[in-house]
């Protein structure tokens, strides 16, 4: 067999394997001697469907490893969280005996939306109402309640776990350009599945759904799929208030890739329609709130009940850093998040950088509470971490140690009753 023939066989084989093995790159780089040795050993397997391994590689799942990797990681994440919850139960009688017990704090607010709909006027705990809990996640959970016929707390927890699967999957799509082999798929997916604040994806919170839709929206806009990206943006803005920031990221991508002049000249209406779709989810929610309460921005006004008033986020950051304990820890996280935004800018990903910076500063304009989960459930944040760790492989172990430690600590704290986990 001559070298040209071997190369052709290699390329056929490589095209069947996703992700392409690293040695194909070596072959393309012209390292013939190394590749020849591998050709002799590996090529026949690629053309022998009798081998289960090769059959799997050629199957649909083999070509889309993110689908099963996300499932494996979801199961591992579920096992991790439930194991530590069980430890907490054994050790200090944490109130955890079944999956629905994870539904605490904000999950109980989502439960009121699922079970009773939105409040007509503030009446909970004196002056509170459930308007600040955006509608897409309760709607998503309501589907599980109706289909599975389970109580709302369990439906919310299951809905957040299913959303975690989508979050891992869409994040892998988002970072696919950076992935070289299966191990990197696992590492990237593991950043989501073993996030330091992964607890919230098992506790009936909207974070994993928000993350999944945001990652999907970034993936679609990266592929110039404007309308689909706009629809994802609309869903994102119906999940959390900061979802609206995607409109800015969308605009940045359009202007960088197509340019304002070309959009006007070519009358590229798909781009305009996609942009206009981005805030649609929030606008529909505003219309609904106006119909229900007479106040279209009741989700902002109700923050008074939590003693939150719009202010300067940089003052909040300064205060956080001045205080000992958790505020300082969160303050350091804020700085790390802003540094990650800077890194993304350096990596020429301004759409991710602006989104991340906005997603950090918008909640901080109210106060510091709940900030860590807002930061750690941002796709650009995990994207920045992945690209950094890919460049500095030896940091993986340090990151994993801290992330896993924090994740297990948070599970235990979740049942302790402290409000640092809110």
């Amino acid at each position, binding site marked *: 067999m001559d070298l040209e023939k071997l190369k052709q066989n290699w390329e056929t084989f490589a095209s069947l394997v996703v992700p392409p093995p690293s040695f194909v790159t070596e072959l393309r780089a012209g390292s013939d001697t190394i590749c020849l040795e591998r050709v002799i050993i590996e090529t026949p397997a690629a053309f022998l469907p009798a081998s289960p391994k090769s059959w799997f590689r050629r199957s649909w799942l083999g070509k889309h490893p993110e689908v099963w990797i996300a499932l494996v990681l979801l199961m591992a994440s579920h096992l991790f969280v439930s194991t530590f919850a069980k430890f907490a139960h054994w050790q200090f009688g944490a109130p955890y005996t079944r999956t629905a017990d994870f539904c605490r704090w904000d999950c109980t607010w989502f439960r009121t939306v699922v079970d009773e709909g939105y409040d007509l006027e503030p009446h909970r705990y004196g*002056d509170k109402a459930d308007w600040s809990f955006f509608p897409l996640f309760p709607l998503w959970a309501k589907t599980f309640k109706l289909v599975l016929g389970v109580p709302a707390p369990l439906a919310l927890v299951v809905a957040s776990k299913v959303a975690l699967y989508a979050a891992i999957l869409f994040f892998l799509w988002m970072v696919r350009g950076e992935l070289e082999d299966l191990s990197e798929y696992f590492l990237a997916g593991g950043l989501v599945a073993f996030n330091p604040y992964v607890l919230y994806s098992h506790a009936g919170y909207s974070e994993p759904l928000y993350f999944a839709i945001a990652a999907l929206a970034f993936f679609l806009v990266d592929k110039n799929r404007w309308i689909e990206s706009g629809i994802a943006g609309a869903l994102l803005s119906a999940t959390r208030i900061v979802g609206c920031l995607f409109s800015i990221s969308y605009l940045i991508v359009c202007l960088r890739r197509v340019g304002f002049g070309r959009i006007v000249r070519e*009358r590229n209406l798909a781009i305009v329609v996609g942009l206009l779709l981005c805030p649609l989810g929030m*606008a529909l929610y505003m219309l609904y709130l106006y119909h229900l309460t007479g*106040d279209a921005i009741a989700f902002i006004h109700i923050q008074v009940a939590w003693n939150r008033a719009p202010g300067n986020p940089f003052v909040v950051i300064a205060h956080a850093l001045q205080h000992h304990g958790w505020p300082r820890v969160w303050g350091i996280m804020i700085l790390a998040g802003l540094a990650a935004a800077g890194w993304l800018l350096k990596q020429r990903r301004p759409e991710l950088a602006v989104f991340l910076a906005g997603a950090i500063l918008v909640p901080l304009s109210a106060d510091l509470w709940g900030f860590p989960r807002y930061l750690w459930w941002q796709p650009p944040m995990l994207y920045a971490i992945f690209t950094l760790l890919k460049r500095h492989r030896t940091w993986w172990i340090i990151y994993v140690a801290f992330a896993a430690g924090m994740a297990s600590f948070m599970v235990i704290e979740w049942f302790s009753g402290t409000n640092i986990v809110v």
Partner: protein
Amino acid sequence: MRLKTTISVVIALGLSVFYCAILLLALNPRVSEEYRAYYIERISMEWKPVRYAAMLEEGIAFGAPGLPVFVKNLSGFSFREGWGRWTDADHGPTRIVFADSLDGLVCLDLKARPANSMKGKLITVALGDQQKQIILRGSDFSDYFVEFFETRPAETLEFRFPGTVPPENTVDLSNPDSRRLGLAMVYLRLFRGSCAAAPAMRNASKGNTVPN
């Protein structure tokens, strides 16, 4: 191709009009006066507070839940504590709006103490268009009396602090409290007539009276 373009134009125009309409709705809420005062303008301190029966002479007990029937709303105060409430400039001007207007000779009896930033400072107390000034010097709670003469019908009592009220933690570095505190108020009573005739005045030090 033309059909696709037409559909896109219709969608784009429809969405633009829809967003303009939503913006208009957001700017023009259709809510009760109480809701507007508490949630939007933030000039009221309590949402649907419990009303308790009390006369002007019995006053407002800031440590008690709810408000007396003669008070319409409060603004510029921090949350309720066991002893009373602090004023907090972050919550707007310190203002008490009465349900009915006050006029004639009125004596105000305030039991309070100043925040560190307000010790020895001139604080203006305004009932309607009439203004008086008081100085709170001590660190302990004391009764302070202010007399308003021939007041024209007024529904609003306001406390105005000199300059910008600083956060407490910038004045007292050992105090982590970041609220912009002015006065800690235990109660506020109102007597029709001269302060000299007010029963509370007879038991209190006249040194705290500041007739203008």
